[in-house]
């Protein structure tokens, strides 16, 4: 106690210019504050930061979405265009195609990640030799940056020198340089699904593992007593009890994949043509390459409302599942 006192309250008499009365004035001021004021003082910096970097830009973006602002032509007068940007977007066939591409990507990759992630969780949930080592190995991809993953897979998938094509060739006999995973219209959409699954299935595995470990052993013991087969135990105990966790994983991954940009941009740049151009890539091109600020603000709002709406519906469903 003495030591603490020494550290927190050094002997002011030994420090020139600092006297005890000054300290007691400060203490009195703090003592005069109500708990509510002190709480606000603690929260205020966070709120200020949130307002500055989240709320203000959001309001500013909503304002811009009703204008014709194009930053590459900022000399043109800024005009209020009402809902023109929104109507342009909703009537643009290309935007609908990009949304379709995004939906296909989200559904395929999340479905695959759930299957692979859940399968891995079932395997890792068993105790075996080298369990920790393999868990770490499986978790490695999700610890990498998407930029690293994009570049790394670009090399792996290179038709002439990349090992992926040679591996496929080994099993199928197809010449390695006769196909390009990122350059062919028929393969590129599956390539981005494959790479995304490679990276994020471990994340789904972690969530599922938490679900599996939360199932009490006595339920399985009771099932054993009832002579339930392993298959029956899986369908009647394991799966139903991990469904809320699976749904949570689906929610997280779906939101993330809807926003997917970096990895796909590095792998295919949205190509070949526009085959893998997700709506986030279109948004980036409209905002920071074409500089159509008004238009891209409107597109961002539409996407935000879409994700927010879908996530809300999903969360309500998730709660219903949990209540059951």
């Amino acid at each position, binding site marked *: 106690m003495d030591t603490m006192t020494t550290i927190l309250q050094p002997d002011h008499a030994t420090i020139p210019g600092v006297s005890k009365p000054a300290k007691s004035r400060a203490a009195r001021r703090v003592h005069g504050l109500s708990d509510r004021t002190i709480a606000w003082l603690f929260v205020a910096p966070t709120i200020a930061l949130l307002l500055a970097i989240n709320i203000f830009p959001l309001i500013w973006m909503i304002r811009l979405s009703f204008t014709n602002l194009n930053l*590459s032509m900022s*000399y043109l007068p800024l005009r209020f265009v009402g809902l023109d940007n929104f109507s342009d977007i909703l009537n643009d066939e290309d935007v609908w195609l990009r949304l379709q591409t995004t939906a296909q990507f989200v559904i395929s990759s999340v479905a695959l990640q759930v299957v692979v992630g859940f399968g891995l969780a079932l395997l890792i949930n068993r105790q075996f030799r080298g369990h920790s080592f393999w868990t770490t190995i499986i978790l490695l991809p999700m610890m990498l940056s998407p930029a690293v993953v994009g570049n790394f897979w670009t090399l792996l998938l290179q*038709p002439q020198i990349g090992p992926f094509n040679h591996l496929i060739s080994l099993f199928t006999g197809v010449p390695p*340089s006769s196909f390009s995973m990122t350059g062919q219209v028929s393969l590129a959409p599956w390539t981005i699904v494959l790479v995304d699954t490679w990276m994020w299935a471990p994340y789904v595995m972690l969530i599922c593992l938490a679900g599996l470990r939360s199932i009490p052993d006595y339920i399985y013991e009771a099932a054993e007593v009832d002579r339930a087969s392993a298959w029956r135990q899986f369908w009647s105990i394991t799966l139903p009890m991990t469904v809320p966790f699976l749904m949570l994983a689906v929610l997280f991954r779906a939101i993330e994949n809807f926003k997917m940009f970096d990895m796909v941009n590095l792998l295919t740049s949205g190509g*070949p043509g*526009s085959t893998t151009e997700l709506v986030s890539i279109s948004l980036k091109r409209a905002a920071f390459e074409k500089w159509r600020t008004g238009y891209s603000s409107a597109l961002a709002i539409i996407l935000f409302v879409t994700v927010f709406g879908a996530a809300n519906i999903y969360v309500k469903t998730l709660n219903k599942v949990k209540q059951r």
Partner: protein
Amino acid sequence: MRRLGWLRSTAASVVVAAAALGGLGGGQAAAQGKQLTLCWAAWDPANALVELGKDFTKQSGIEMKYEFVPWTSYADRFLNELNSHGKLCDLIIGDSQWIGGAAENKWYVKLNDFFDKEKISMDDFVSATVVGYSQWPKNTPNYWALPAMADAVGWTYRKDWFARPEIQSAFKAKYGRDLAPPKTYDELKQIGEFFQGREIDGKKVYGAYIFTERGSEGITMGVTNVLYNYGFAYDNPKKPYQMQGIVNSADAAKGLEFYKELYKCCTAPGMTNAYMQEGLDAFKSGQVAMQMNWFAFFPGLYKDPNVGGDKIGFFVNPAGPKGHFTQLGGQGISVVATSDHKDDALAYIKWFAQPAVQQKWWQIGGYSALKAVVDAPDFPKSAAFAPQFLESMGIVKDFWAEPSYAQLLLDMQKRVHDYVVADKGTAQQALDLLVKDWTKVFKEQGKEVASQ
């Protein structure tokens, strides 16, 4: 406590050492306290410019700092900087297509008064570079940049392969003519087909490397080399912005079809999203017989120990049925309007415009646009690619340089890549859609677009 004491003394030593090193390195400049930041793309000529800039620092005492960004993010990065009125760059070597936006948005300092005062005449520079890099509006005496780096699309080929007797005779037997650098695109395609899949020195090689990149400007900068020569133009010269029937003429569609045929018949597998660097890699690794690329890279290729010297040859972009042109590259150097060091930046431009500096610029790997350098009698012999460069600069055409160029460029990237690489629709449909896209952009810009 002992550990903390050790940390403190170490930190102090590091600070003292850093201060000492800083003092040694930046002596003269630090004394004068002047520094300029020059922004450009990260590529071979930028390294040459760093070397050249040492002379400027020696003469003026102004230290040069450089911001070089890879080509794929060069436009994004610096247009963002200019748009946001940032102070990162005092001088910028901006792409030719930026000039319209930079002038209209007042991102660059207008240089007319400075040129008059310093007696720098634009007549002393190659006219295509003055129009391409400096003027806005085009063909008017309003100058926003000094031509800094002349450039155009050219071709390299494996001279050693072309010279082999067995290859020569096989080619002659198949096509009834000698194997030589192509003068037309039809000849180029034949040569490409001839080399495609051929085994040379035990290695499978491919016909040609062409630009196919999707994200920035690659495929547009490639396809225009063919389109111009098949009769494509950006608009009606008599009716500005009238594109219907010009951009999407039957001839232009044939040109686009040809580029796709070239891509299908003669390129290496996987070249679906390839630009400058992929071309250099393909050529340096002995994978392709011919390579489309910018002249800026040719000094480096010529010096390459594996494929340079006697093994490499150069030729001008081949002609097509409707003309003989090539895509203009290159950039001008400008003073950024928000710079706090405009006078020093102008001093740099004054220094850079001197004939002796321009001569050295060419000698160390840059491409001068000064007539005194390129029209000198010994210029064609000064480098293996100098005659082709000179000829190319006489036949260049450039993409739109409008303030909305980025939208126009990305629209073309999409339509062309969709057709050439992704096999979507026909060439005619791709160009029809392009006219529709461009019309929309110009109308948004407030331009009158005549339909016929």
